[in-house]
């Protein structure tokens, strides 16, 4: 058997360990190092894994997959056994390319974006820590090691969301992300317990081999395991009902939003479902749940995205919505198209965030789209790269998003159970996606700069925007200045080259990234699907080429319709949105307030939890029972002691009195023969 050593490849464990070394170096002594050294360490610590992955990719054909590298035993107790084992197969390969590739680009971008920030070293240390855990998650060969990565990326996410920890909203957003993710992780844990109980192992190969050997296992405990895994996935991948943390996570620096909250970490849930598809395939019910969650989230988040005014929040809801598409793909058992969309999404959504960061950078920290506008000529490179990303996410051919989204919609259409409905929801979402992305595009880059009308605008919708505005103003004030003291109307400037480089590369990928999955109907070979076929098996249903082409045309027309609507609303007749908002005031307010889901959770979950904690658990159990017992014991001893202490008065005659009393009692007892009774007892 050949091993990586024979092929002159480095061992797999180096992939996560190198970024970890970067984290340790920057984390321990980064504070005392000059900024160029810090960024050099961080970049090298991500460049090495990227080069290694590229090298593996070039030799991939000669590696016997799945290739498992066992470093050593981790846990060995009785019948249960878990190893530090890494695995390389087609799915891992694709994830590795995305994580290290996009990760490295975003590291480069961060060098420029964070150049003037406090805690530069801290930022890069966390970023490398994230790479370490993400690579562990992707490479893990068993559920337990995957869980380590899973928790670790959550930690890195928490640390980076709360990077501006002096800002209250950022600290709260970090906490929220962490707590909401805990709920999902709870599901993952329960799934692992069930796996151990039923299979006695957590190794992927072990579990999947047993499932494959028993074709009679359908549903039942596999459904339970799968449902718990889905709960874990909804937490990490921000799906209904646990999506609420992702929009708030935008408090973190923009490169973080791009890397963790768009391109890589949030796709971990999709990766996990794809990785454990053997279990999911045996539980059609769970697949249905996944599909419904995906479709509902895609639509729901897209509608919220329609009216948001913060550029990063639009992108955040867009991410939630696109992750919904990936779930939808998994739910109709078309894992390859889900992974395909994951890849293209990593390109264009990473790019959208980086470009948005470039816009924010150019405007000196401004995030409100209502005061942007007319930036097309001022920051042309950002504009063109963002245009590529907008076209890609809207699903216009031949950009990347078109092929992956089209594949998902096609597979959903062919799905036997309610596929047409899922397809239709996906199609409507595609329209909404095109609309809000072009809305962002027009508001940011076209028309006149609205920086001067800020005040007027705020008065215009005072009642409506009161809440949103107060947060925005606070954010604007708290947003650390990027070292440019100017107001944004005057000194708008293009970002430095170190930021533009990643933008251009991702821009190119957003254009051509989809070509790896051109379907047969368009005379392509769908390379990604055939590449992943050894893992997922052949793609399920096959329709006719004609149907595929028809659906492609329909979705293209839908995207164009979305573009056209946005064009009318935000370019041709800019007064129209306000009018419509007046007419459909209820709907508008509902969307602007994000369906009040946060408030609903606050009333339904957080409030009761706080009440129970504060009064029942703290008031009754903790203060009453636990503290009460301790106090009672203490006070009893103290009181009894105080009573007995009076005997020692220091008065000799009272001692004498007690002595004679005692003697008298003894005498009486003896005399009346009571001792006899006592001793008889």
């Amino acid at each position: 058997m050949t091993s990586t050593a024979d092929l002159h490849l480095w061992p797999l464990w180096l992939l996560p360990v190198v970024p970890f070394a970067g984290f340790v170096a920057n984390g321990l002594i980064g504070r005392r190092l000059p900024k160029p050294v810090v960024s050099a360490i961080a970049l090298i610590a991500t460049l090495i894994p990227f080069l290694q992955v590229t090298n593996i990719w070039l030799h991939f054909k000669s590696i016997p997959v799945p290739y498992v590298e066992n470093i050593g035993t981790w846990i060995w107790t009785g019948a249960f056994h878990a190893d530090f084992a890494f695995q390389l197969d087609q799915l891992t390969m694709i994830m590795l390319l995305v994580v290290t590739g996009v990760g490295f680009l975003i590291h480069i971008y961060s060098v420029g974006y964070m150049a003037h920030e406090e805690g530069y070293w801290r930022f890069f240390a966390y970023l490398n820590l994230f790479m370490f855990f993400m690579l562990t998650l992707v490479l893990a060969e068993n559920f337990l090691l995957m869980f380590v990565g899973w928790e670790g990326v959550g930690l890195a996410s928490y640390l980076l969301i709360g990077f501006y920890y002096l800002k209250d909203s950022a600290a709260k957003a970090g906490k929220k992300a962490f707590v909401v993710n805990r709920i999902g992780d709870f599901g993952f844990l329960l799934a692992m317990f069930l796996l151990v109980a039923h299979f006695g192992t957590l190794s992927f190969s072990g579990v999947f081999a047993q499932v494959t050997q028993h074709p009679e296992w359908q549903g039942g405990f596999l459904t339970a395991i799968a449902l718990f895994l889905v709960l874990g996935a909804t937490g990490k991948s921000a799906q209904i009902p646990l999506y609420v943390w992702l929009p708030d996570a935008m408090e973190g620096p923009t490169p973080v939003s791009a890397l963790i909250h768009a391109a890589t970490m949030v796709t971990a849930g999709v990766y996990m479902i794809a990785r454990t598809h053997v279990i999911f395939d045996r539980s059609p019910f769970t697949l249905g749940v996944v599909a419904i969650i995906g479709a509902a989230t895609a639509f729901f988040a897209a509608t919220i995205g329609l009216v948001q005014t913060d550029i990063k929040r639009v992108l955040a809801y867009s991410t939630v919505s696109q992750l919904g598409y990936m779930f939808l793909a998994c739910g109709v058992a078309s894992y390859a198209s889900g992974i395909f969309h994951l890849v293209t999404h990593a390109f264009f959504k990473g790019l959208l965030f980086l470009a948005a960061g470039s816009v924010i950078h150019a405007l000196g920290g401004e995030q409100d789209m209502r005061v942007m506008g007319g930036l097309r000529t001022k920051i042309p490179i950002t504009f063109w790269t963002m245009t590529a990303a907008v076209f890609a996410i809207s699903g216009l051919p031949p950009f990347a998003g078109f092929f992956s989204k089209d594949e998902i919609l096609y597979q959903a259409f062919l799905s036997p159970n309610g596929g047409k409905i899922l397809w239709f929801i996906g199609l409507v979402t595609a329209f909404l996606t095109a609309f809000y992305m072009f809305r962002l595009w027009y508001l940011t880059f076209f028309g006149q700069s609205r920086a001067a009308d800020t005040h007027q605008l705020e008065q215009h919708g005072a009642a409506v925007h009161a809440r949103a505005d107060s947060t925005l103003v606070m954010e604007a004030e708290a947003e650390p200045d990027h070292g440019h003291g100017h107001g944004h109307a005057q000194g708008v400037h293009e970002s430095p080259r170190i930021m533009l480089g990643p933008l251009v590369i991702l821009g190119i990928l957003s254009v051509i990234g989809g070509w790896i999955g051109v379907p047969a109907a368009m005379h392509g070979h769908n390379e990604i699907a055939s590449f992943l076929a050894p893992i997922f098996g052949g793609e399920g249903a096959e329709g006719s080429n004609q149907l595929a082409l028809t659906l492609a045309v329909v979705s293209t027309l839908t995207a164009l319709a979305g573009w056209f609507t946005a064009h009318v609303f935000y370019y041709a007749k800019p007064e129209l949105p306000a009018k419509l908002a007046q007419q459909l005031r209820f709907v508008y307010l509902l969307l602007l307030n994000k369906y009040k889901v946060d408030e609903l959770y606050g009333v339904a979950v957080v409030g009761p939890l706080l009440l129970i904690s504060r009064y029942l658990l703290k008031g009754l159990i903790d203060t009453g029972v636990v503290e009460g017992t301790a106090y009672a014991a203490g006070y009893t001893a103290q009181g009894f002691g105080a009573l007995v202490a009076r005997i020692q008065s220091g008065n000799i005659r009272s001692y004498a009195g007690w002595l004679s009393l005692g003697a008298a009692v003894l005498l009486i007892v003896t005399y009346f023969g009571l001792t006899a009774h006592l001793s008889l007892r």
Partner: protein
Amino acid sequence: MVVPIYYYLILSAILFSIGVAAFLIKRNIITVFMSIELMLNAVNLTFVAFAHHWHQVSGQIFVFFVMVVAAAEAAVGLAIIIAVFRTRNTLNVDAVDLMKL
């Protein structure tokens, strides 16, 4: 004429009771001390009476021990009383109550 034993015992009980009462009532340390001697000797009386009654010599020997201990006690006790009087200028037992909580 043989005196019945209970005469001695009653006398002894009376002496002992007087001792206890004086011990409890009197405030002068020397008087208290004397009442202790009284109690000791009341007990001695019962020892001697029983020794005579049962024709056993051990009771008599006990008395000697008691007298030896009482003598030693008197020596130490008086030394303490003198020391107390030198420092506090009083022999009132109620005034000597430093040993309290």
